[in-house]
């Protein structure tokens, strides 16, 4: 358990890669983790079906923010249609630590907003587990 906050996680948390904004993103998405209120947004720049640049912005725990930072480094240069395969396995491999189901939700927030952005680009329906993660449907009279 003492290995939880490994150096690479703390490094990405303290020095997030690809933080900030793009001038003209092809897709923008945001999401929240209702459990802890973590917020994350993503902006993608796409050229000829390939991700050419990415920015993540958010606030939250070290796991959610480090996972977003790590993920941002892996998606530039990849084809948009190929990124639909990004999921739990890839994030866990990047983080390099086992996560409890609760903390897995923190790590998966970055994947969730990525999927929402990809959905905007490709028009493909969101996988069921991400449906609605880009919006809050307020209950009202």
């Amino acid at each position: 358990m003492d290995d939880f906050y490994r150096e690479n996680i703390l490094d990405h948390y303290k020095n997030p890669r690809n933080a900030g904004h793009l001038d003209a993103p092809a897709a923008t998405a945001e999401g929240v983790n209702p459990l802890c209120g973590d917020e994350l947004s993503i902006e993608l720049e796409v050229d000829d079906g390939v991700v050419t640049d990415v920015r993540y912005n958010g606030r939250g725990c070290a796991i959610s923010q480090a996972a977003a930072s790590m993920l941002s480094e892996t998606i530039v240069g990849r084809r948009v249609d190929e990124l639909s395969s990004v999921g739990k396995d890839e994030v866990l491999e990047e983080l390099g630590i086992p996560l409890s189901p609760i903390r897995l939700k923190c790590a998966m927030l970055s994947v969730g907003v990525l999927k929402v952005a990809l959905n905007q680009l490709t028009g493909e329906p969101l996988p069921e587990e991400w449906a609605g993660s880009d919006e809050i449907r307020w209950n009202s009279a």
Partner: protein
Amino acid sequence: MAIALDKRAPLDAERLRQDFPILMKPQDGRRLVYLDSASSAQKPRQVIDKLAEVYETGYANVHRGVYRLGAIATEAYEGSRDTVAAFLNAPDRREVIFTRDTTEGLNLVAYAYGRSMIGPGDAIVSTEMEHHSNLVPWQFLAQQTGATLHYLRLTPEGSLDPESLAKLEDVENVKLVAVGHVSNSLGTINDVPALARWAHERGAVLVVDGAQAAPHRRIDVQQLGADFYAISGHKMCGPGAGALWGRAELLERMPPFLTGGEMIRKVELERTSWNDLPWKFEAGTPAIAESIAFGTAVEYLQSIGMDAIEAHEHDLVAYGYDVLAGIDGVTQYGPPPPNRAGILSFNLDGVHPHDVAQVLDSEAICVRAGHHCTQPLMRAFDLVATTRASVYLYNTREDIDRLAEGIEKVKRTFR
């Protein structure tokens, strides 16, 4: 003052701790520090044994069986109701309804009372410090009935702002006021009798969320002036059962909440007459063993003494507040002691509460991190989350010292 002190004979937390098997089991070779009783309390051997005893020697459905086991179970179940009624100083045992927890008790009021007594043009008053379980039911009720909903606001310190109450002076047709006795996020102790007077002057009923008060202090529903008071047994060292107390004249006027077996007197194909109180509100088979062991938990608390428990927690939270105040980078929320129940809510500069809790877990310390089901309160303080350490009768100053050491480790990790 000597008399007041005498009434509060100190309790021996180190000895009481030994009643709790889970606390005696070390984690990673270390003494477990459990500081999340505001979420759910641990269970003493007496309660665990009672559950086993019921299932091994006295279990059957209640109010049905002609056979002896059915009578034994019914007697124990109804006996537990007497215990809970006495604990709350309810004037009448028929006013105590067994529920799953506080959430169910508050929803019972929102549905059975709210939807029959509240309509368009009426007003409901609650506060922005409420747990979601004492906020969402009223919001939903207002939406469904066309009533308006008004909130008392918070002072920067985390108490209810009297000015926000004054602003509601002219609101007409206030029918229901809902308030938490003690804030689960801040430890604020609200002036329930004053709010009861305010509600009653307007002909409104006062609904009290007692989830964070009943485990920790003497509760007298008559003295408080409440009309409904909901509690959770699992926060009181009991299993998963709760209770709602309501004034009989109100409960009698209310339609049922859930319908089905047990809550009926006579059923025909086209019509049904309701059972007497309290069973009118206990449709179906209740949580029998849990409700019986809830009574055992209440007896356990009473054997220690609610005044002693309250005094012990006041001492611990005052100590903890000072200890946390001495740690560089810690910001605390909520009123300073002594007007504060056994809850410490804080943040550490630059570290998310989830990460604080994760590092503390590696030190065998259990705290809660998050919004504590009080998102509007968090928003009022411009917070996303806090770390919360809550104390109970089995916590000691050593636990607080371990928390402080743990926070230093968090700081070293995230330096």
